[in-house]
């Protein structure tokens, strides 16, 4: 067991990393992922590490534990943790530190728990294993932590298995597990990214309070600015493995110095004049749908989509947004009601629809990685619908592919690339081009920007809006992100538990009075104001 130094006080330097260089191995050689970053963290402080994916923030976070992922190596620099040199420390001693004095909370709690053990056993495992507390004490303490984290049934929830609690609860469980040995440092690696906004708020509140309560130092890694504004005392911005700037949170928010940081701050400035139209292109009438014969997921859903406009469907995961999309495309035949396209009912089954009916409704997926065949080149991906629907071949097809590439702001150098040779944003653009190749009337966008970084998101949204203006395409935009909805939609449909809560113009939905659920959803979207979470907590406690 590693003893804590007696004289530890708030304000002492806990972690000091100097000139850290980390190499990653790919494509048969070593590349620098982190290029000489310094990081200093005092006891009781929370640092926000922020940057796009690939900026090296997770790698740097793990390096704070003296750990390098397989395929990475800590090349040079020094890591001093409470006076101990982690670079020089043998693996065995570092393992003594991990899980006792340094804890790690991963993005996917579901993947980090062992499904075969009870939650409380996993909560206390490290504490007991490192002989920090006796097992019975640790268990009592775990229940206290459950209370602090506001988990339901704190006395008994530990006896459940991971699949018996929700994602948000599991993420709080993981925080309890990290907190159990009372570490000096916790590293949170995108802990709320996979959660719904309404759940995210609860988890954020719980995590912030418990970190404050025990005066634990923390590194909070995220790509979401508004989240980090709530959590961190100061923020460090990374890009391409280098530090862009570091400042105290309020200062950073009010007066960012670097151009790059400013661009991160200002991305949510897209706006769209809402337009009203009575020319309905898709009309969903009284649709019930179920998976298998038992679980009914849609209840009497009615949605009208006007031509040339953007209808945003919002709601938490499980609210039936994606299922609605599957009904429209014919992948899931409804058990009641029908989908009308230009006034005519579409056949329920995909197989019964004609090629032309299929062509008119295209779909863009959330994960561009899995939406494109990894073995097909961009030329094949975009060219196939051209050949399939319009019979284009040879030169005509090649010309049209180039044209489409230009339309999505890429060039001919992408023609022979495979999907994994492009960045996330480029992949999503190619998916858009594939949908455009079919010359569709309606494009269903299923969370198309939620896997992307903010700057890239804005680029994609701008592209979609430009295409709408030029080509008059109708979008059915499925998302859980209210900021995106504000930016691009004309009409909004709010869904909850398989039912449509309300549908209307953006200005109507986003202004009071709200139905209860819309109110909850809207108030849960983090804002860039560092006091937002505190105020919300007070408001909800009062109300």
């Amino acid at each position, binding site marked *: 067991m590693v003893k804590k130094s007696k004289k530890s006080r708030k304000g002492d330097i806990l972690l000091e990393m100097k000139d850290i260089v980390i190499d990653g191995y790919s494509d048969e050689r070593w590349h620098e992922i982190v290029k000489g970053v310094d990081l200093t963290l005092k006891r009781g402080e929370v640092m926000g590490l922020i940057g796009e994916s690939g900026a090296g923030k997770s790698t740097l976070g793990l390096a704070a534990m003296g750990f390098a992922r397989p395929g990475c190596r800590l090349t040079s620099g020094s890591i001093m943790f409470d006076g101990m040199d982690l670079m020089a420390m043998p693996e065995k001693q570092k393992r003594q530190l991990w899980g006792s004095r340094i804890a790690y909370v991963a993005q996917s709690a579901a993947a980090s728990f062992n499904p075969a053990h009870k939650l409380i056993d996993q909560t206390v495992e490290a504490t007991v294993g490192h002989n920090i507390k006796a097992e019975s004490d640790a268990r009592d303490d775990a229940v206290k932590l459950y209370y602090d984290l506001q988990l339901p049934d704190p006395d008994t929830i530990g006896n459940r298995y991971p699949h018996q609690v929700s994602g948000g609860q599991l993420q709080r469980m993981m925080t309890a597990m990290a907190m159990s040995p009372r570490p000096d440092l916790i590293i949170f690696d995108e802990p709320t990214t996979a959660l719904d906004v309404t759940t995210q708020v609860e988890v954020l509140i719980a995590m912030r309070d418990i970190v404050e309560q025990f005066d634990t130092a923390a590194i909070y890694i995220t790509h979401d600015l508004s989240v980090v504004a709530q959590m961190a005392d100061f923020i460090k911005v990374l890009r391409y493995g280098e530090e862009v700037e570091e400042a105290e949170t309020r200062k950073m928010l009010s007066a960012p110095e670097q151009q790059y940081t400013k661009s991160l701050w200002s991305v949510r400035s897209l*706006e769209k004049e809402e337009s009203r139209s009575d020319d309905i292109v898709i009309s969903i009438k009284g649709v019930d749908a179920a998976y298998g014969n038992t679980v009914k997921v849609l209840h009497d859903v009615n949605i009208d989509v006007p031509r040339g406009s953007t209808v945003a469907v919002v709601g938490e995961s499980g609210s039936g947004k994606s299922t609605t999309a599957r009904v429209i495309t014919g992948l899931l035949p409804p058990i009641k009601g029908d989908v009308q396209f230009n006034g005519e009912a579409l056949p329920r089954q*995909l197989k019964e629809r004609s090629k032309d009916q299929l062509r008119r409704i295209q779909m863009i997926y959330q994960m561009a990685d899995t939406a494109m065949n990894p073995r097909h080149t961009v030329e094949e991906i975009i060219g196939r619908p051209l050949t399939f629907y319009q019979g284009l071949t040879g030169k005509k097809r090649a010309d049209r592919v180039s044209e489409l590439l230009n339309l999505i702001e890429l060039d001919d150098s992408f023609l022979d690339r495979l999907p994994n040779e492009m960045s996330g944003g480029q992949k999503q653009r190619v998916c858009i081009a594939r949908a455009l190749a079919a010359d569709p009337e309606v494009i269903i966008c299923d969370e198309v920007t939620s896997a992307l970084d903010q700057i890239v998101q804005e680029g994609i949204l701008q592209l979609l809006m430009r295409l709408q203006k030029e080509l008059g395409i109708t979008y059915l935009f499925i998302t859980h992100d209210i900021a995106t909805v504000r930016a691009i939609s004309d009409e909004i449909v709010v869904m909850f538990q398989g039912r449509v809560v309300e549908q209307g113009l953006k200005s109507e939905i986003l202004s009071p009075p709200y139905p209860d659920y819309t109110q909850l959803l809207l108030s849960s979207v983090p804002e860039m104001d560092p006091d937002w979470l505190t105020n919300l907590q007070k408001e909800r406690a009062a109300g």
Partner: protein
Amino acid sequence: MSDTNSTEEYSAAAEVGMVRQRRTFLQRAWIELKKAPITAWFGMIVVIFYVVMVLFAPIIAPHGEAEVFSQSYAPWGGEHLLGTDQIGRDIYSRLIYGGRNTVGIAFLTTLLAFSIGGALGLIAAIDRKWLDQGISRIVDVLMAIPSLIFALVVLAILDKTTFNLVLVIAVLDSTRVFRLTRAVALNVVVMDYVEAARLRGEGLGWVMRREILPNIMPPLVAEFGLRFCFVFLTIAALSFLGFGIQPPLADWGSMVRENGSLIQFAQFDLTAGMTPLIPAAAIALLTIAVNFIVDWFLHKTSGLKDEH
């Protein structure tokens, strides 16, 4: 729109993706080969040796496949390098021609087994309804019967032609190919790009060939190597039992049987005793060589990579 705010230098084309260095297939193959372990090299050299022998059998072999000489059971050396068999055929020549029959037929059979099993496996994985159920249950029944005994029974009823032999073994082995293909294809079928292809209205053939097949090739290629060994051994075993490749065609299994009695002369003439062991050794060597290559290939493609 907001083109004016601070993202003016942003350009989609300039985003950093992982662009791999373009290499031709040969360059990539050579890079992989240079890293191949010694066992894989051994396997490849042996296989190339066999392939050359099989392709150029009429040029390499000093005598004809079914050519009968006056002296039966001739000793090693002289005109007949490895002596002659019970009716006076040159064993060295028959060994070379035997490779042609055994290896060639095994290769054809494996190919056929993969065509049948692979196609049905893909269809089952895509369909997932009664067709999948139907094929899977038939396969279960076929697999429940020991395949060597099943093959013996069927071949005893049918004519003992090479065609029947190939067909029976191919059908029996396709059950295993079916299961593997179906299992790996199931992981690919759930991908969004397959759904996208179906939404586009693509037919079954396109989805199978262009969307799924390229993504499941590595395990199938590895299985092809292993399956080839099993088919090859089954044919040799059937021939040894008299149900496989029929005389006067030479093959290694029946050569072991025909000259088996020579083994008791080992105490008088060691070389004579070794005669039946040579075709057996040829079978063993090829099996081991193919396995070495498959091991290397599996190691490379399964992600069981050494940590750096």
